Structures are given as C-alpha cells and as structure tokens.
C-alpha cells in the first residue's frame, strides 16, 4: 500500500512493533509517536497513514490521538516547553517561572514564537515534585529552575540546539544540603 506522508523508515519503525503484541492495534501509541516525530505534528494525512498500517479506521486513530496530551494536532515549535504547574511545583514558585517564560518568549501559554522555535505549554505533574519548579523541553527535564537558569537554557537551545543544564538520571539529595 502507498503511504501519503510517512516514509518507508517510519513504516519499518511502526511495523517492527507488531511482533510485541497479539493485536496490531497495541502499536498505536508508538505509531503516533513515530508519525509525530517525522511530520512534526499529527497531521490528518499522517493519521490516515497510521490507520492504514494498523488496519484501523482513521476515526479510531483520531480518537486515541485526541486523548493523549503528548500528541500535537497542530504544528508546534522546534522546542516544546512543558512547564509543570501542579501543587508541589506551584508551592515552590512555578507561577513566577511561567510568568518569566511568557515575558521572555513574548507569547502566551499555548502559543509558539514567530520564529517557530518555542511552544509554551503549562502542564500537570511530571513526577519531579522534589526538584521544582521544573519543565520538560522535548526529551529533557530541567529542574530547580530560576529565571536566570531558564534564560541560560533558552539561550543554549537557540545557539547550540542543546543545553548542559538538562537533568541526568534522578539526582539523590545529599544530606545536609538544606534550602
């Protein structure tokens, strides 16, 4: 079958998942992830391709795609900033950090900068409550945020496409390190 937008590489990445399940449909979340990575967001043709590959109707694919927050149904910036606003982060200053991001990027929550670099999203708990305020940008967590740290991260990403301030594996708190 001929795909509308997805590449043969994406097809292979999706089909490789089938063997892991007794039903092809179980590969749907993975397939949507692959499609989104390739196209940049889940366009209708991309979802139709996924439906084709998984023997589903486009509606079944759309139904799932609209349920999960990590799927973008509209184009997003190269860097998607998800800043946590839930209670533990809010108690230690997530509010001012969100304000800082809005001012610095000159966009509202949910918008993308005109240069297409950054999309700002305010999200619920990311399981980093002991190191708030925190945000996720694409694959990486950034924790214990301050305004200055946010500025450095955004500058790094603009300049080099990555930042050394990204968190590595879970940091164990050192006793005696008091705030």
């Amino acid at each position, binding site marked *: 079958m001929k795909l509308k937008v997805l590449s043969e590489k994406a097809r292979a990445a999706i089909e490789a998942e089938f063997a892991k399940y007794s039903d092809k449909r179980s590969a749907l*979340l*993975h397939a949507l992830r692959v499609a989104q990575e390739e196209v940049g967001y889940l366009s209708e043709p991309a979802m139709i391709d996924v439906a084709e590959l998984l023997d589903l109707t486009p509606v079944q694919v759309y139904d799932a795609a609209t349920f999960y927050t990590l799927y973008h149904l509209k184009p997003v910036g190269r860097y998607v900033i998800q800043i946590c*606003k*839930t209670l533990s982060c809010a108690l230690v200053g997530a509010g*001012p950090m969100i304000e800082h991001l809005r001012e610095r990027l000159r966009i509202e929550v949910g918008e993308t900068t005109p240069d297409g670099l950054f999309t700002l999203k305010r999200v619920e708990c990311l399981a980093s409550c002991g190191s708030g305020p925190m945000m996720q940008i694409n694959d990486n967590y950034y924790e214990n945020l301050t305004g200055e740290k946010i500025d450095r991260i955004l500058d790094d990403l603009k300049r080099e496409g990555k930042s050394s301030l990204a968190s590595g594996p879970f940091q164990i*708190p050192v006793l005696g390190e008091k705030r």
Partner: protein
Amino acid sequence: MPTYEKILLRNMEQPGYTGSLADYQKAGGYKALEKVLKGIPPAELIEMVKKSGLRGRGGAGFPTGMKWSFIPKDHPGPKYLCCNADESEPGTFKDRQLIERDPHQMLEGIGIASYAIGAHTAYIYMRGEFELGARIVQRALQDAYDAKLFGKNIFGSGFDLEIVLHRGAGAYICGEETALLESIEGKRGKPRTKPPFPATHGLYQKPTVVNNVETMANIPHIINRGPEWYAAIGTAKSAGMRIFSVSGHVKRPGNYEVPLGITLREMIYEHAGGIRNDKRLKAIIPGGASAAFLTPDFLDTKMDFESIAQAGSMLGSGGVTVMDEETCMVWAAMNLLEFFAHESCGKCTPCREGSSWLLQILRRIETGRGRMEDLDLLVSLSKRIEGKTVCAFGDAEIAPILSTLKFFKEEYETHIRERRCPYRSNVELVMSH
C-alpha cells in the same frame, strides 16, 4: 535523626553505582530470579509473597501475593503481567528514581512475578514523558536479554519470558489499572467497569496482574532474605519499607525509604529537615493529590495504611506534600481541582462535569467572587460524585475540597466575606488560570 537499613535505594546510594547490569549483578542482582526459576514452584512463591505481607505500592495497598493468587492456574492460553510505571500522582516521584537509577531491580521483580503467575509476556507501561527512563530501561532490557536473563529457557528452567517496554503518551488516568490495559490495547485510556477484574479479564481479556514499579522492586529482596525478614519490618498490617516522596515547603525535598509506621513528624521534621525558613506547618497531603489534607494535629500519626486511613486520609502513592502557614488552602484545593478537571477521562458524567463545576466554584471564591452558599454547594456537589463513578478518580477529586472545608472553613469564609484572597498576589493568581 533515626536511620534505617535501606533496601530499594541501597544499591544506588553506593558510590560509583551506575545501575548497569554488571553493577547490579555485583551487588547480588538476579540471584533471586535464578533461585526461583531453579527450585521454587509458583504456588510456593505466591505463598512466600503472601507471607511477607507486601502490599501494592501504587496507591491502593492491595496485598500483592493475594493479587497473584487470583490468577486462574489452569487457564489455557496467555496470561500477562503489567508493570505500572505511569507514575503521575501529584507529589510522587519515587518510581522515576527506581527506574532511572536501578532499572534491573525492577526488571528482576518483573521476571519473578511473571513466573509466579505463569505469564510469558510482561509489559512495562511507562508514562510518555519519561524519555530518559525509557532509554535507560530499553538499554537495561537489551543487556539482560544479551545475558540470557530473559528470553527463552531462562537459567535452563524451561521458563520463557519476553518483557516489552510500552510507552504512554500523556494521561494521568492510565495509572488506573484497567485504563492502563485499554491504553496498551491502543485505545483511549478509559477505566473499565469492574467486575470482571483484570485477574480473569485483563489485557486482551486474558488473566492479568498489574503491579507498581516499587512493588516489583521489593520482590527480589523478599526472595533473597525471606518473607519472615520482610514481615518483621514496619507494622503488623503494613509490612516492609516504603519510599515516601516529600515535596513542597520542606528544607530537604526528596525520596526517603523508611519502614512503614514512622510518624509524619519524623518524616517532615527529621528526614525532610523541617519547614523552609523555619515557618510554621499548615497542612500535609500524606499520599498524593488523591488523599485528603491533614493538619499539624496529625503529626504524630503513623505513616502506615491503617493509621493514615483512620486519620481520615490515605497513604496512597506515598507522595507527601507539605504546606507552610502562608499557603492559601482555597488556592491549594483549586490548584488540584485544575489537575483533576484536566485529567478526568470523561467516561462518567459525575466526574467529568463535576470536576469542572467544582473548579469553577473554587475559582470564584479564590478570586473574590464567591457566595456563602457556595460552601454548601461544594459539599452537595461532592456528595453527588462520591461513589458514583467507574473508578476511584471521582472520590479522589473531592478529597482536597472536603478536607480543606473540614479543617479550614473559616479561610473559605474570609475569602467570601472580604471578596479577595488574603494570601495571594495577582501574579500568582494568573498562573492558576
């Protein structure tokens, strides 16, 4: 400060420990899996876990051995084990540490649990945001397969096991076990009506056990050191160690592994170092956002399933959120209702509609537009959600409201009478909208 012998966090706190297969095996890893596969029949293994008193570490605290024993022994066809790595309960971040720092400990537990229930396929359902965790577990799985610790005929026992990492895509509700199964099946993560329970009609309608990451991580230790050893830790009904995630206004936020049954006071003032800037404590959520708020009057309550329940709350996921005297309780409840309104899956009307109505009322009180009759409205609306939904989410979303109303009613009244929040600046209000 009292110190305890750590079990789950022990390896990773050794200097230089990377969580690699070599490091884990050097620390005695995969010995329990070998021991089990070479000589403990599944029925005996289930008895051992029952005897240890281990209860699920995800939130509900259901006895693990009993959960395993519900799987029909003579069932023809596949059975499944699912490891719940969807950690999303606000205030909880222990599983992320276990996944990222010592993945093989969890994998070994999954291997043993799968053997106990006769499953030849196990799925690890990991929340989609855990990119790093996914990479680490994928690598750990590859290494374990290469070392023939999983796959065909493990340790020459004839037992086969495939472990598959399945990634979610952003939905709190997928931590609910039947929603998790729907999500693995490639659907919206909506909880199923129970019964039937997953033990008989789980993934693809086959017998299935769903166990949390921390629960799995405990299993190898129970095998290595014996159920009697494990049962002697903690309290009579809440056995073993538990990792509590402490966050909010404490000096040392983090994960602390302690025996079940230490007091909230010890946790907050000893382990987590007390309240930041030496302010006064105002409120504690002892078990994740789904658990009712408690006040400093409960500091001497023991952190075990029974004692916290008796205090009117829930030990839940072990996420302890601490709030100081300057925290507005209406704002805190509103913040969590934003979470619940956003995460309600939409299946049950009382939960779907109720969460946004409750949020609307809280917003109007917090922004100075509340009415005294709103307080009764919050209660009557909550009572129309409680017990009227397919899963526990409905009961969870009313916990912050009913408990703050119970302990801090005068604070709600002040908001309404003075037509403003006595605590917040405008800047902080903006973020909650």
